[in-house]
């Protein structure tokens, strides 16, 4: 049969030894971390120094992720296909004649996407100019590659976690939640152009967050056994992002590109992280009560709760971020990139004015949160059952 597993199989459910976490799980986590540090560092580089080449340290950190992903996914797929890992082969999927864990195929896809994005991005810069924004078609290919590598690593850990028991499962669940938080980080980066603190009283900010966050936060949480999984994911995201505020400005940097509209003497960090921990706690409190409910009902409740709680908390917090009390090394609202003019909203500590159709857009944001929550619920429930 074309679709069946075409080699003699030994039925050995739960017989895989997990006494130690395999090296490729660790390196996948290292690779993903490297990419997330690299992307944030690269954005900071563009905001502080401006000029780059392919060989800048942040680019190396990003592409290290691709190299690591390529190595471990190729190893797993080839070793599984050619019989070097019989235990893995028994818990593998088949694609294009190759065998391997599902996560390895997803990661390999991400590695190829990253590879493709490089010449595409290079041509794009030659045709339309050098990097001036995050959202561009070649950057989306790169982002899809990084996201796929993260999801692939998550799937790989998930396959092991869902087959494991006891302490092993507990240990793997930490890796799993860490990788889940890195997915929240990368999606947050994609929304970054719409989520600075001066935009947090605009509807597009809430639409951006509703697109970027619920699927990953709720999906990852639902597939985990842990009571406070969403809270853990949101906490790691916040700690990761906040640590960039605390660390990046310690290093000197000077603009190497004009026009320089604002003198800069150190690396410019990202905005203070969104207070996702609060809606995450609400989601974790509600999840056990909703487990038996219809998926759309779960999505309606979780999406609405996420939207309302996040709106309440972030709206108020944004007021605080506008005050002098937030202009310090902890909250970092005083950092402005070299191209930020003296009459910008950031320089003036003013909110961008709300859209003329603010309430209609907020309605769209709310519905978006429900839809992305529904995707998260479906994805999370599927992930609970992934064993390969």
């Amino acid at each position: 049969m074309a679709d069946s597993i075409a080699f003699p199989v030994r039925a050995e459910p739960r017989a895989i030894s997990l006494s130690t976490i395999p090296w490729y799980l660790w390196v996948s986590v290292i690779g993903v971390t490297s990419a997330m540090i690299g992307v944030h560092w690269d954005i900071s580089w563009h905001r502080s120094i401006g000029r780059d080449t392919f060989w800048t340290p942040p680019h190396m950190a990003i592409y290290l992720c691709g190299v690591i992903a390529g190595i471990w996914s190729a190893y797993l797929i080839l070793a599984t296909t050619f019989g070097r890992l019989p235990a893995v082969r028994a818990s593998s999927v088949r694609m294009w004649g190759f065998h391997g864990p599902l996560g390895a195929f997803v990661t390999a896809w991400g590695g190829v996407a990253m590879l493709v994005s490089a010449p595409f991005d290079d041509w794009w810069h030659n045709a339309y100019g050098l990097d001036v924004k995050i959202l561009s078609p070649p950057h989306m290919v790169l982002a899809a590659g990084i996201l796929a590598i993260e999801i692939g690593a998550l799937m790989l850990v998930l396959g092991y976690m869902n087959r494991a028991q006891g302490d092993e499962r507990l240990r793997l669940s930490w890796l799993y939640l860490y990788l889940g938080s890195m997915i929240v980080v990368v999606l947050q980066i994609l929304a970054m152009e719409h989520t600075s603190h001066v935009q947090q009283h605009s509807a597009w900010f809430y639409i951006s967050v509703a697109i970027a966050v619920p699927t990953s936060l709720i999906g990852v949480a639902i597939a985990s056994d842990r009571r406070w999984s969403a809270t853990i994911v949101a906490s790691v995201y916040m700690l990761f992002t906040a640590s960039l505020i605390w660390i990046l400005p310690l290093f000197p940097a000077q603009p190497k590109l004009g026009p320089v509209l604002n003198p800069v003497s150190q690396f410019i960090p990202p905005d203070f992280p969104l207070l996702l921990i609060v809606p995450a706690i609400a989601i974790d409190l509600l999840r056990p009560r909703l487990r038996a409910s219809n998926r759309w009902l779960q999505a309606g409740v979780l999406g609405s709760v996420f939207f309302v709680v996040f709106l309440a908390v972030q709206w108020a917090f944004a007021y605080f971020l506008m005050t002098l009390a937030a202009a310090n090394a902890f909250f970092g609202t005083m950092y402005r990139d070299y191209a930020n003019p003296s009459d910008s909203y950031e320089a003036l500590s003013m909110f961008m004015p709300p859209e003329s159709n603010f309430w209609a857009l907020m309605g769209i944001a709310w519905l978006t949160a429900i839809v992305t929550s529904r995707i998260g619920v479906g994805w999370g429930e599927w992930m609970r059952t992934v064993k390969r």
Partner: protein
Amino acid sequence: MMRGALLVAWTAACAYAHVGSPDVFLEGSAGPYPMYVTIRPPSVIPGVAEIEIRCASPDIQAIHVTPTPLTGAAAEFAPTPDALQRSKADAQFFTGTLWMMAPGSWQVRIQADGAKGAGQLSVPVPAVATRAKPMQFALGATLFVMMMVLAVGLVSIVGAGVREGQLEPGMQATTRSKRRARILMGATAALVILILWSGNSWWTAEASDFAGNLYRPLQMTASIVNTSAAPNERLVLTLANPAWSVPRKIDDFLPDHGHLMHLYMIRQPDAARVWHLHPEMTASGVFTLALPPIPAGQYQLYGDVVHRDGLAETMVANLTVPRDLAGTPLGGDDAAGVRGESPDGAHIVWDRDPAPPKARQAGVFKFRLVDRDGAPVQDAELYMGMLGHAAFLKNDGTVFAHVHPSGSVPMAALALANPAAGEDHSMHHMSGLPPEADFPYGFPTPGDYRVIVQMKHGGIIETGIFDAKVD
């Protein structure tokens, strides 16, 4: 009062500072260090410009360059300077690259350090996007194949995941999971097609946005009108401002060696007659001039202006003169020339290099003004503050550059970039002038060119029209 226009005809071509000649050539001094600077701006903005500097003396130890906008707040905060590389083969030759991130009027600040201390020179450079680079076939084909691999790969991964992802180790896919996999693969394929379609739409929109950023020169419409004070026909040039991402005006021009516009009127198709005229701005965006005597025919007009921010533009128009015009005698700095003719027998000689000039190679073109016997004229004068003016014109009309002995940079922009150096870099107060003029320039492309040179002596402006074949 104007009465009906005799005729109106105009075209606009891609132009900035000059037409089809984007590279900047300047002979100047960074303090005590004379140097010849060549800057090749990028054709895409943001992009990377190339810079070459040939120093006249060997005592420069280091050269640093900094690109900044010429005016405004960003001119105050310079980015970190970059050191140029000294050639290993030629210690007086330096090269490097510069990043220009925004379109508009820029300058490159050159800082030279050496045995005689430090010196500075700022070179105005227009930063404009002039083209969109097409994708090479090989790259396009490779990316298309990889896109298909990724698209099919994504569908296959979803199929594999749904078919086998939830199976216990060792178990085989069931008929149900296979059917479900096929359904989801179909849905994924539809989603992939939607994503590709959206991506293509996005790309198209970005390309369209970029096309809006491409430089579009000010448009110039030329017409000839009679005035009540006949027989004085007047040339009327009306400017229009086509949409471009950089804000600009049609009446914010700086005087460039005394005139808001320098207009070359060149007879077509032989370029055997040329007028160098200076219309006055009589209303916002309207320049007028009492036309000199002109025979009927087709003429190409090139009008040079410099905006208040230092951005220089060359506007192009065609003019048809339907009949011989009696016109008004030339006066002031206005001049006319006919190929092979001279008002008094004096003429301009081009001291050419034996080898023909090469495209994209910076050089210095040397001319001498001699009397009818071939001896240097003894009464050389400055023409608009300079030893001479030159125009380099490609016969197919794709190149026009108005160049001075200091180079291709307009004097008004140079004065803006180097305020401490005085009002401009011309030579109003010199005496005992040599009857020679050297023009730093490089032809942008191979082909046949006309070189029009004007020099002055004893109150007479001489015009020399030469042919040049560029390899």
